[in-house]
């Protein structure tokens, strides 16, 4: 439940930031959303087993599912790549404001 709660809180913050003016806040919102989804992937692997999947360190029955961890690692790096690019976009143009001029 704690993890679900954390995810909910993060999603709230992420969506709130995403819906603001200015690309920077949108980007930061996405960074947060990325965290939430990564935790969701971890949660999908199950949160009962919590020992690190290093062979020989822990008893087999408490070792956590390594597959979601690999997914999350991949996802983190992909999200990072896009974040850095979006930050570049925020630094081009005339401002990072994203509202329509009218």
């Amino acid at each position: 439940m704690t993890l679900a709660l954390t995810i909910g809180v993060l999603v709230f913050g992420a969506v709130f930031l995403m819906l603001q003016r200015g690309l920077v806040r949108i980007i930061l919102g996405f960074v947060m959303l990325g965290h939430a989804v990564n935790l969701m992937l971890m949660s999908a692997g199950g949160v009962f087993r919590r020992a690190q999947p290093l062979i020989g360190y822990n008893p087999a029955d408490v070792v956590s599912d390594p597959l979601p961890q690999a997914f999350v690692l991949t996802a983190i790096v992909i999200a990072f790549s896009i974040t850095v690019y979006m930050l570049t976009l925020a630094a081009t143009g005339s401002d990072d404001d994203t509202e329509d001029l009218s």
Partner: protein
Amino acid sequence: MVLLILLLVLAAAVIGTPLADRALGRHAGWLFAGVLLALAGVVLALAPSVLADGHTPGFTLPWMPQIGVGLSLRMDGVGWLFTLLITGVGGLIMAYSTRYFPPGRRLGFYLLMTLFAFAMTGLVLADDVVLLYVFWELTTLTSFYLIGLSGPGASRPAIRTFLITALGGLALLTAVVLMVLRVGTTRLSEILADPVWSQDPAFATTIALLVAAAAFTKSAQFPFHYWLPDAMAASTPVSAYLHAAAMVKAGIYLLMRFTPAFSDLAVWNAALITVGLITAVVGAVFALQQHDLKLLAAYSTVSQLGLLVAVIGVGKEAALIAATVHTLAHALFKSALFMVVGVIDHQAETRDLRELGGLARRMPVSAGVTALAALSMAGVPPLLGFVTKENIFKGLLEAPGPMWVGPSAATAAVLASVFTFAYSFRFAYGTFWGTPRGSTDVHEAGPGFLAGPAVAGVAGLVLGPAVPVLNRLGERGAADTTGTYYPAGLSLWHGFSVDLFMSLAAIGFGALLIRWTASGERMAGRTLFPVNGPTVFEFLHEGLVGLGRRVGDLTRSDSPTRHLVMPVLVLTAMAGVAAGAGIEVPDQYGGTTHPLDWPLVVLATVAVVGAVMTGSRMACLVMVGVAGFTTALWLFLLGAYDVALTQLVVEILTVVVAALVLRRLPRRFHRAPRSRTVLTALIAAAAGVSAALGTYFLTGRRDISGPGQYFLDHSEEDTGGTNVVNTILVDYRALDTLGELIVLGVSGLIIIAVLNSSGLLPSHGSRWVVVSRRSAAYDADDNTLIMRAISHVLLPLLVVWSVYLTVRGHTDVGGGFVGGLVAGAGFALVYLAAPSASVARIKLAYPKIIGAGILVAISSGALGYVDGSFVKPLHTGVSLPWGGSFHLTTALIFEAGVYLAVVGVVLTALNQLGLEESRPGDSTLGLMAPTPDQPPTNAPEEGSGDHPEDPLGTVPNGGTR
């Protein structure tokens, strides 16, 4: 087979047009006239077999067998008549065209005319509904271009015509689809013979209405009639062919073709008779109102088509005999009249009746031809038109339904004929007799020009007395449409009968009308309705365009927020629906909550609340960083150390890069009105609740997954690695990792590319932040010395540590990504510690590092083919000199590639975003530019073919111009 040859000859004519045009110019028309008339001869030769013996030649070739569509052709009596008209009248018009146009090449015209002839022939011969539809649309299409060919003024009329007829086409398409689905074949003859039409009246009614709608648009029936006069923007040969003889007859053909299915359907009878007669009357009245001869002829066509539609609607044998022969008569007199209009227009340089008159003396042949055609149109004996029109009256008298229907219908037809008589008179008299007006310097046209109209006009005269030769045709037409043989008994004189009196009434009242209206002049120029068709069309068109603009306005925003909110709402709604519907979920597997989790929930909440509340960019960045670190701690708690480590480093690098960007922007965020904030918070709350509920109910409800257990059990044996996550990354799912590496590398490349194209905002320090210059703390060289000293110590430490993490990744916490990120952090440190931006730049060719990383990773993947598959890791144990052995795997090379790419990207971000400012095409990349010999800027290229005035600055070297 003969049908296929017919079509193939026409197709060959189409394909041959460019050649003919090049060789003969406008005289190519003679060639095509020859071809068409020869084909008409072939058709005539088929008459004994088709008309007398009732043979129906056919042909079939598969086209789209999956949906049963074939290239099926069939010629019965109706098809024979229309084929004859298309080829015969077409031939005359082709000949006429050679004189109509000024000398020169006429590729477009001849191409489209032959294509039209091809399409029309295909249409009337098709025995496959889909094929029929194809040719139907092809006639629409060619007509569109033929009208548009007449220049800029014709473009709107062409478009209006196209859209109206296409509307009908869609009705036909719908009918076709429904019929095919219902009957299970695309063969037209089989469909028409199917019992479904009598068994399922609802279905029959639907199809009947759709087919009628298609025919009404094509044959210019009220209220779609207006396109036909509108299309008079086209050149005269086009009008003569399409708008008199052929295309408008496609609708008539369609109605006749489908009569077997619908003739007993009250809706069909009522719709056709009503619409047809309204059109006949209205068209005739309109015709009398025209000054322009061509428009007069056009409205006349509308009216005549109305009569045909109405009489087909009767659905009885006599009516269809009348329809068959009147179709022929109309084609003859109307094409003659249209061609004559062209002649008059040419010779007198006007076709306005107010400027014409008394030309008979100077243009006697034209006058004669016109008189013949007009008399036939007016239904005056002994011309063919008289006989056919009388048959129409007779046919209409048999209209099904209550007693009064037949007489009323016939009366309406007589009324139309009264006006017909009047405008026919006006046409001929007003032009050639009457008061001489306009230019007197008018001469008779040459024989080539007059041949076409003369033949058509004289044919009407000859066929009048010789009308019994058409008996076979009429009977066959009736038999093909009603299924029963009925003696036609056509003759110029067949005693006193009701229809003879009706003819006489039409002529008599017509004469009176001429008198009352002074040859129609008193009616001319008046309008019957307050609006005309094109206006209504354009009004609707504009309305649709305006509606479209408003629909487009809904999303016309460059604000990401506007576009982001919709998916979020949809997703939230979906969660709501799922929650509302209720989903069966198993119980949670084990406990999902641990006391140590709570501090993290608190931290996450604090971070989110802070990020949401603050107006400071920096504070928001820090708060998001806090959320990221909290996430990393979560990962620790969940046993994902590799991931947590990566998360930590990524988070820090994000902060570093974001800080480089934020210095270019105002310190505080843009403000938003309170209402927006509240709304946003509500949406965000809904999304948050959805995410939390989704996670709570849909995860954590099973034991470890099958693949997860497999990895734990086998990774050491399979790969020699004990860090299971790492073995998944570089061994089991190296493909994911390769993709991830590519994504990372490409992000570096696109950062460079975008900045080369657009440039950065200036570094806004001076604008947003006041920095005191009056202190010892100002000088950067001095004040960075502490950091530099530290970075000199830390950099080697970080690099060594990063290599250590990379190498040990397979067995312990670490890996190429974390390693690369740590090394990247080291470079970031050096960058940040440097005393000035120019010194700070790390002069490594970072795009090349990225490229090298990609190549190294893929090469190691390709090595896998040695063992049978891409990215299959190869293993070997290297025994060390001091005993023991080192487990060597190609996965390590893969890791090296990953490491390189990560370092390259971090360097890219730092160097590119760290610039004070950049302009588009800033050549800071020097040697790294992808195509160094082609400067990205606008600088002129040495030795290239580009001229300074080059309007296409973008054409590359050697561009063809």
